[in-house]
């Protein structure tokens, strides 16, 4: 089956005074219908810019300089602005980290939801749009949606606001949702609720979901595939269990070792030394080389290309974890 979204060798660069900043540099991945893919990385790894690039939301001085973004076979990159405009919010929707910033504070939830429907399909009557909005709110677990629709965003709590933005994203039954840190600002029990709703919705409506986060544990719980990004590149991607169970890239391995877990209480955490390098001044070889415990000579000379491994894993590394040291 053809994937809903097929990103091939995407490159998004920012042309700044200090030089060219390669925020996304050769990213490729696919998402099938109903699939949840996790995109994990630390700050500055380019994970959010990847999401923005797909929706065409990268502002100057940033520009997509190469690659293809195939959405149901059509390249979004070459689409005229007006068509892209139609696509956003109908076929592809986005959920942001901070719902307070995405909801209009001076309009009722109802108004914003009806607007989102009618913009994309003017033939829908107001009553029908209201009906659909109410159903969407009910679907994401908001009790008494009829009354809550009349409320303003500030009258909702953080978790409720995030549910409203999920409901708005679902309104036009998109084929793809891009969720950028949707639960990072939420409390543990509320995060559990939101993840639960998203899981249910994706299963029910066959919506593909790209879940962008810094939290490996969250995507480990929901996604079928995980992509790990570092300094603008996906260094390792693969099926959930394989990647968490036996990471091949030293960075993935280090990241997993950094997460406190009850099995290793009290022991020092395995830490990755050093800090993320500046994207303006990347080394010629592998960007992770200076922090890597597995680095060999080849790492400092050229950046490793993507290799397809036996278990559908794609890896960028010369000397993977578990391989004999040579």
């Amino acid at each position, binding site marked *: 089956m053809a994937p809903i979204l097929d990103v091939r060798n995407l490159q998004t660069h920012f042309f700044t005074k200090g030089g060219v900043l390669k925020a996304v540099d050769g990213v490729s991945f696919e998402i099938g219908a109903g699939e949840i893919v996790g995109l994990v990385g*630390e*700050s500055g790894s380019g994970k959010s810019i990847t999401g923005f690039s797909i929706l065409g939301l990268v502002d100057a001085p940033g520009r997509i300089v190469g690659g293809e973004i195939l959405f149901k076979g059509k390249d979004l990159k070459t689409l005229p602005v007006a068509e892209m405009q139609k696509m956003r919010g109908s076929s592809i929707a986005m959920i942001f980290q901070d719902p307070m910033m995405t909801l209009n504070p001076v309009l009722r939830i109802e108004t914003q939801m009806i607007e989102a429907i009618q913009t994309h399909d003017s033939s829908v009557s107001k009553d029908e749009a209201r009906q659909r909005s109410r159903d969407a709110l009910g679907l994401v677990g908001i009790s008494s949606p009829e009354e809550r629709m009349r409320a303003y965003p500030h009258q909702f*709590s*953080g*978790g*409720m606001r995030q549910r409203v933005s999920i409901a708005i994203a679902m309104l036009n039954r998109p084929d793809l949702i891009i969720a950028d840190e949707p639960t990072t600002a939420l*409390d*543990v*029990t*509320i*995060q*559990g*609720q939101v*993840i*639960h709703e998203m*899981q249910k919705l994706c299963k029910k409506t066959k919506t593909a979901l790209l879940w962008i986060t*810094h*939290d*490996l*544990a*969250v995507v*480990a*719980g*929901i*996604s*079928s595939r995980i992509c790990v990004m570092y300094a603008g590149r996906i260094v390792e991607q693969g099926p*959930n*269990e394989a990647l*968490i169970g036996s990471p091949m890239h030293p960075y993935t391995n*280090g*990241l*997993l*070792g*950094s*997460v*406190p*877990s*009850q*099995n*290793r*209480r*009290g022991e*020092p*955490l*395995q*830490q*990755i*030394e050093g*800090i*993320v390098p500046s994207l303006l001044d990347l080394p010629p070889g592998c960007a992770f080389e200076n922090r890597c415990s597995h680095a060999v000579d080849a790492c400092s000379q050229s950046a490793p290309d993507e290799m397809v491994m036996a278990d559908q894993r794609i890896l960028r590394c010369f000397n993977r974890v578990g391989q004999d040291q040579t």
Partner: protein
Amino acid sequence: MKPLLKVSNVSRDFIKSLDLVAKFLNRLGQDHREEIVHAVDDVSFEVFNGEVVGIVGESGCGKSTLGKMVAGILPPTAGQVHFDSANKSEGATPDDLKTQMIFQDPFSSLNPRKKVIDILTEAPVHHGLIKASEKREFALDMLNRVGLDSSALGRYPHQFSGGQRQRIGIARALAVSPELLVCDESIAALDVSIQAQVLNLFVKLKQDYDLTYLFISHDIGVIEHISDRVIVMYLGRIVETAPIEAFVKQPNHPYTKALLEGVPRLEIGHRNYEPVSGEIPSPLDPPTGCHFHPRCKHSSERCKAVRPALVEITPDHFSACHLNDSE
């Protein structure tokens, strides 16, 4: 053994006083009342020397307010915070310096217009712990303790990354030789790999300098990793305190169970979430009786009316839940 820190029946209210209009309208016979938030409501606990006590809870549970009261930044409205130093030798730092706080945001907790050397030495010089002529040497020693080198001395906070800045914050707290460090979400703002570095630093410093921590966090993974004992708070009250093994294996309070179940974990992998329902109520208008009853699966009439007391269910394991009485 005498506790290092004894917090007895501490409460803290925040009152939003009436504005002029409301006062005027009250004169005319309308009923406008002051809004009172009980941020911390009758909380007692003890911390012993060398212990790491984790305080965990969701937003609005009062954990930060409690931390500030322990550190002496906020006075409590009722109750007492008593600190009893383990080191009473001559020339040791005075008691009120022995509790230091490390904050969440390493960007706003350092003065952007001061060099690192001045940030680190301001307090010890002011309190007469070191002479002004010893500043450089002293600051260097502090930086070494937290894993930074001498090149940091003459730089300003904005020239460092988040993790490095947090290290400077820790060095500043260590500069007055404290015994108790209150860490309020101290690693929450950092990236995962940097979090591990700073967490390891905390563990190392504890061993090297015989420190006691009050570690406040919403991240249960972090709390499980570092704490010896855990205090769970919900809407201003302690609902459960337990040694770490009991907290992980036999949580008693329904809220603690819900919290532990809600945490995404690497070990479990793919799974279906079954979250606890309902929102966290507003602390302006908390539910009656047990604060957790509107979200609790086991709630009864009694939970709605009577506030459960914190009782010892097994040694050192306290829980505030009516379910424990009926058995």
